[in-house]
């Protein structure tokens, strides 16, 4: 289904426009904030919902994420990454924080920061650029189906479930080394598949 979001992002110009939006948001421009919300609300909400599972919790996290965008837009550095990566990282980390706090899966893990540490600046790291979004989404889904299921499971439970390698090993009753290997091989395979199609 081609949703409003997809139509919106296919019409959108590119990362530079988002950088301008974030700059205007930093200057307390509500119109720019609405525009960014319209562009990203569905994707971020969907990502959050896929992690927290409950609609009410997803709405709470969505609110936190966009309030953080409003407050921290001035800290966004276009030379270090694109708005897509920034928003996705914010949304995913907030969602994982939510389930960890709810599930009482207390861990002393160190986590990555809210801001992504991108070393590929500009639009190259933005999956929403270059191709029509639904086409790109289909490629991602297809690529994931092509990698071995045990590797895919490890990637998805880590990314969408917020599990660490040792937690995955415990959950699936696997040796830690096996989890590490599956995760590495899965990521490499997925990269190869995406790279040749995108």
């Amino acid at each position, binding site marked *: 289904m081609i*949703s*409003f*979001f*997809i139509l919106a992002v296919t019409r959108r110009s590119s990362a530079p426009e988002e950088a301008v939006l974030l700059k205007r948001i930093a200057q307390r421009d*509500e119109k720019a*904030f*609405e525009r960014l*919300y319209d562009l990203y*609300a*569905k*994707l971020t*909400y*969907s*990502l959050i*919902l896929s992690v927290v599972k409950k609609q009410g919790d*997803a*709405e709470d996290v969505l*609110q936190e994420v*966009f*309030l953080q965008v*409003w*407050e921290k837009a001035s800290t966004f550095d276009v030379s270090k990454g694109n708005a*897509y990566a920034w928003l*996705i990282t914010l949304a*995913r*980390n907030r969602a*994982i924080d939510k389930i960890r706090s709810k599930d009482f899966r207390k861990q*002393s*893990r*160190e986590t*990555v920061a809210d801001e992504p540490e991108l*070393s*590929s600046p500009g639009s*190259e*790291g933005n*999956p929403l650029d270059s191709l029509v*979004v639904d086409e*790109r*989404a289909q490629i*991602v889904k297809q690529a*994931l189906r092509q990698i071995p299921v045990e590797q895919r499971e490890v*990637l*998805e439970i*880590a*990314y*969408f479930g*917020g599990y*660490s*390698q*040792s937690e995955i090993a415990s959950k699936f009753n696997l040796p830690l080394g096996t989890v*590490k*290997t599956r*995760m*590495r091989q*899965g*990521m490499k395979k*997925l*990269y190869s598949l*995406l*790279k040749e199609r995108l």
Partner: protein
Amino acid sequence: MAIDNERFEEQCAAYVLNALEGEEFREFKKALAEADPDVKRIYEEMQWTALHLPLRIDLATPPPEAKQKILGLIRRRGVSIQETLFAKLATTLGFRRPQFALGFSIAFVVLLGGLMYYTFFLREMIYQRDQQITVLRSELSSQQKRFAELREDLARKEEILKVLQSPKIDVVIMNGLEISPTGYGKIIWDPDRKAAILQISNLPPVPKDKDYQLWVIKGQKPVSAGVFSLTDPVKETFFKIDQLVEPNKKAISAFAVTLEPKGGVPQPTGKMYLLGKPS
């Protein structure tokens, strides 16, 4: 210590999925910071791959009221930021309520404004006082000068009075000559005390580079008896003569006043204004 590529890839895959923990997390961060471009490319590729994972989700639409709620919150955020600032100020100042901090702030601003006005007022007052002191100093200097003149005048008059009080004085009248026919002069002379007073009137004022010079003529020889300037020719003016030391009246054939270069000369060179002979 550097880690091998396979280990780096394992840790990198977990890192971009946020699944790395503990010592391995720190080890990877260090390795990434020190990595060469080829190794960093592995990280970039893995991160690029991870950023595509959200696209596998079937999109869901947030409820419309979520947007309105967020917009409402950011509009109120401006107000709450101000409230937070006052709350912080209140905490810093030890107030329990932010309103007290606001009141304190207003009072502080008013006090500051008052102090600034008072400072300006004081500076203005000091400036005016400085001006008055300058004027008063000038007046004092003028009065001191006047006082010195009066004291000098008094001393001269006392000296004249001493001469006039002497029981034995001689008076020699000097009359104006052709250049100053209305001029008049008088020598009041106490030979015993070797003191004398010159009184003159109606002589023309002295140019800046000139002085009048009094001469005592013994026989045919003029001897200087002193120089004087005439500042107010209308008034009769008295001058004390310090150099008239001749006790013998008969030895003096005449007194004369000439106009000479400033400070006087050994022998007369200028025109004669007054001349008188002892009787």
